């Protein structure tokens, strides 16, 4: 069986890695290429690269940074932010990414998912789903960097997107993002049980126990964190040793 994946996320704007709290108040966390290489060599199972201001600023993703980063990593690598067309996606794959995540572009035009899945395979198309609670037990999908409610139910959108071709879901809880209060277990479980593709939980990681909880109670296939790793509060090695002790199947690092 596949191992549970630990994924550092590089939220990027204007060529630098940043990390915000609930999608605002960004502080500088360093050079993406240096961080990517470090994570690639110290046990990360995958990297996620998000150009968080690409949609808002209405500009194409910084392909050169993607290229430089891809040259320095030996683990899988997904890139998202501002993807509107199949050509955008092709460019990112050519720059060396393995997968591409789509959010706003797919909500505005769901056929983008199908077109890309047909051309590159559904395993290449990650639905990036930013979910925010709107009432008890109901989360909506937000677009434009968390600024706009799409009106779509997160669970229903996850079902539809995977039915039309998304091969994986990167599920971020806007409510938990940057709080370090733990992942959103209820949301992750609801989405993970509704779809038959892997779900990456994101938003709220604050300590190693949070990862255990999201894998066991939240039924996540992978867990993502940013500031926790960027600011050295927890190393991937420590985290993996802990998870292994708790009988979670993880990949051992050479």
């Amino acid at each position: 069986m596949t191992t549970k994946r630990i994924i550092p996320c590089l939220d990027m704007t204007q060529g630098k890695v940043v990390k915000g709290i609930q999608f605002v108040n960004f502080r500088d966390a360093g050079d993406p290429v240096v961080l990517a290489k470090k994570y690639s060599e110290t046990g990360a199972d995958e990297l996620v690269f998000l150009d968080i201001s690409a949609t808002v600023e209405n500009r194409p993703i910084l392909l050169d940074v993607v290229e430089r980063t891809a040259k320095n990593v030996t683990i899988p690598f997904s890139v998202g932010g501002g993807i509107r067309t199949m050509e955008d996606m092709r460019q990112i794959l050519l720059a060396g990414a393995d997968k591409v995540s789509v959010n706003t572009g797919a909500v505005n035009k769901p056929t983008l998912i199908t077109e890309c899945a047909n051309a590159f395979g559904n395993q290449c198309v990650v639905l990036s789903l930013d979910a925010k609670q709107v009432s008890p037990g109901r989360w909506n999908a937000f677009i434009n960097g968390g600024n706009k409610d799409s009106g779509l139910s997160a669970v229903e959108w996850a079902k539809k997107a995977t039915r039309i071709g998304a091969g994986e879901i990167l599920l971020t809880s806007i409510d938990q993002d940057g709080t370090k209060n733990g992942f959103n277990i209820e949301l992750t479980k609801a989405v993970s049980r509704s779809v038959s593709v892997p779900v990456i939980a994101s938003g709220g990681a604050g300590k190693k126990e949070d990862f255990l909880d999201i894998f066991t109670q939240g039924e996540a296939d992978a867990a993502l964190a940013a500031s926790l790793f960027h600011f050295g509060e927890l190393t991937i090695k420590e985290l993996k040793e802990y998870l292994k002790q708790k009988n979670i199947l993880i990949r051992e690092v050479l």
Partner: protein
Amino acid sequence: MITIIDYGVGNIGSVANTLTRLGQTYQMSSDPTIIRSADILLLPGVGAAGVGMKNLRDRGLDTAIRIAIQNGKRFIGFCLGMQLLFEYSEEDDTVCLGILKGSVKKFRIVRKIPQIGWNQVVPVEKNRKAKSLFAGIPKDSAFYFVNSYYPIPTYTSVAVATTEYGERFASVVAIKNIIATQFHPEKSGEVGFRLLQNIMKEYI
């Protein structure tokens, strides 16, 4: 020199990066004449079988690959590049290259499809090629997989290593001048790098 077959699908960028790290020179080509005369061919992965085969046919690459392999050219395939070697894939009901006997089926047991992530690759005991391909790689190391379909070779002797995802399948096949993996060695960190070095040792 390695020739990466460019057929409009696939993670050609990351394959190229990896060859650079291995110190190998390469070219990318979708020209059947160049493919036929290449020393070593590499068919990369990521993509759907239907589109993959259609793109190969449209460019006349299916015939070129068959001829090259028949003429003893060394061939490396990753992921979809492995699956297309077989006769038939359930994905898009696709007739494939038919260079290896067998077919490609969809995972049936595990609910989460595609398989995305790191999974153990277990070399087949007493297989001579397994010994050399997995030299210096810790036993049962995990490699990176992204697949919904898996190959079932007619002759199990071509399986050099196997992996379990609900069902056990051939994750590395090798015979004569062909070596192919269902996982992505170019994305499998240090163990992937060592496997690629071993493949190069076999071939160069």
